[in-house]
């Protein structure tokens, strides 16, 4: 499956009530709370088989699908 589609699917699983495709910043728009960030991080780690470094868990890396994908890719590189 397309990686971006998979990330959108994960987001929809966490918060089906939100429209992620029309948000410019998931964190600033309040689409992800602390609980969602923890869940999403675990889901990303499991699906993409990566370990996300604690220092990379920062708002800018969760702002958009592109940012999340970049986070996954950089985590792959560092594993």
């Amino acid at each position, binding site marked *: 499956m397309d990686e971006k589609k998979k990330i959108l699917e994960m987001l929809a699983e966490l918060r089906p009530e939100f429209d992620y495709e029309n948000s410019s910043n998931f*964190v600033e728009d309040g689409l*992800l*709370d*602390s*609980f*969602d*960030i*923890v*869940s999403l991080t*675990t*889901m990303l780690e*499991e699906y993409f088989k990566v370990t996300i470094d*604690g*220092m990379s*868990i*920062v*708002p800018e890396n969760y702002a958009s699908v592109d940012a999340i994908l970049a986070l996954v890719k950089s985590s792959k590189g560092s594993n």
Partner: protein
Amino acid sequence: MLCSIVQYLRQSASKYPKNVAVSDGKNLLSYCDLLANAEKIANVFVSKNIFKKPIAVMIEKSPASIAAFMGVAMSGNYYSVIDERMPQNRIEKILETLKPEFIISNNRNRKKAESLGLDVQKILYYEDLVANEVSADEKVAIEKTENRIIDTDILYVLFTSGSTGVPKGVIITHRSVIDYTEWASETFGFNHETVFGNQAPLYFDNSVLDIYSAIRNGASLYLIPQMCFAFPIRLLEFVRDNKINTIFWVPTVLSRVADLGILDKCDIDCLRNVLFAGEVMPARQLNVWRKRLPNALFANLYGPTEITVDCTYYIVNRDIRDDESVPIGHPCRNTDILVLNNDNQLVGIGEKGELCVRGSSLALGYYNNPEKTDAAFVQNPLNFLYRELIYRTGDIVHYNELHEIIYDGRKDSQVKHTGHRIELGEIETAVSSNKDVLNNCCIHNSQKDLLVLFYVGNAEESSIRKCLSALLPDYMLPNVFIKLPCMPLNMNGKIDRVKLQEEALKL
């Protein structure tokens, strides 16, 4: 003699007027400002002759909400916190029980406040309340009202979850909070240089330690923005940047920070007191914190809302093994703990019993709910001579050989499995010693007599089994292992056992 917590505010505003009283990182009130805003709010109720009445406060966690609490208390009324993010249905149930005389909200929550179906005359907005100055005559009237407050008057009513889905309003007096605050300040050495980093929501009574210990000592209270808890490195940076030296957080937050391996990535040497309560603190993660901050004081506090924040505490003063339970320790001052067995007799060392509490920390009961009050606050079974109430916590504990109290689990989490009486908490403690398990919760499916272990982490079932086999008898090994991406949490940030129970029953 102190009769109300308002005296704390007056003393601190007089001694430390310019100190930061409360800040959320964006807005800030000095002690001088906090007193002025509290007086403006109190003035509205005093001028309307509203006294000893419930006032709901629905403002997001901010300096404004603290000023609203103080204003309500100063006017001789009592406050109840309504979280604006609570489901509408829950807010309505709380308001139905509380029947507030007024609700204080703010412009940001105007839409929500107006949707509650209350008489608009009953909704007051913080921005309007603090817009008007208080005249000299009005100040005299406020002080006269303040002098009418006695220490057994109510300070706040905090709503906790009820087993039937109807929230219960725990009634706490000025006396109980004064007693608790005096004890906490002396035990942990708080003073005007203490800087608190608050995590607990204001409807969760852990916040009572932060708020009143700060105000009592002229210390600074930083309300940490919620988003910092999503991004733990930001949380540590907030602690560092604001020179926070005292935190009182739930173990879930401390554990997550420890598990991410970021403690040594930020200079948090400013931390002097690391306090925790609200759920079981896993020893393994505690040890990570202790290693990082060898000079800080670590304390495990324990207590349900019904006994004013905490009734026991344990200052960690020895090595605790990763598979050991962190003790909940000893009674707080002016509190008596009775550990009673099924025959209502005091237990001996090693024997399990229900933790019951006696003292002025006890709530007056549940608001507008005499039946529930009578069931939980009962006559001390060891006293046949006069009326003396104790609160039965429903928590099972025992004394270890050092005479420290050890928490074993909830009375209702003591289950009968394959003919054996089992504490689910004992299984959870054993599981938490596995370094690849970040969090876990054990539930009993009574219909099929299955022990179901929900856990978060990279551990495989086989490795958890292997680890448990070394620590527990066979009959205590879980029958079903369910790995979750994360633990469901309730509104207080604790593991949502009700939700997991529902999941376990589906098996």
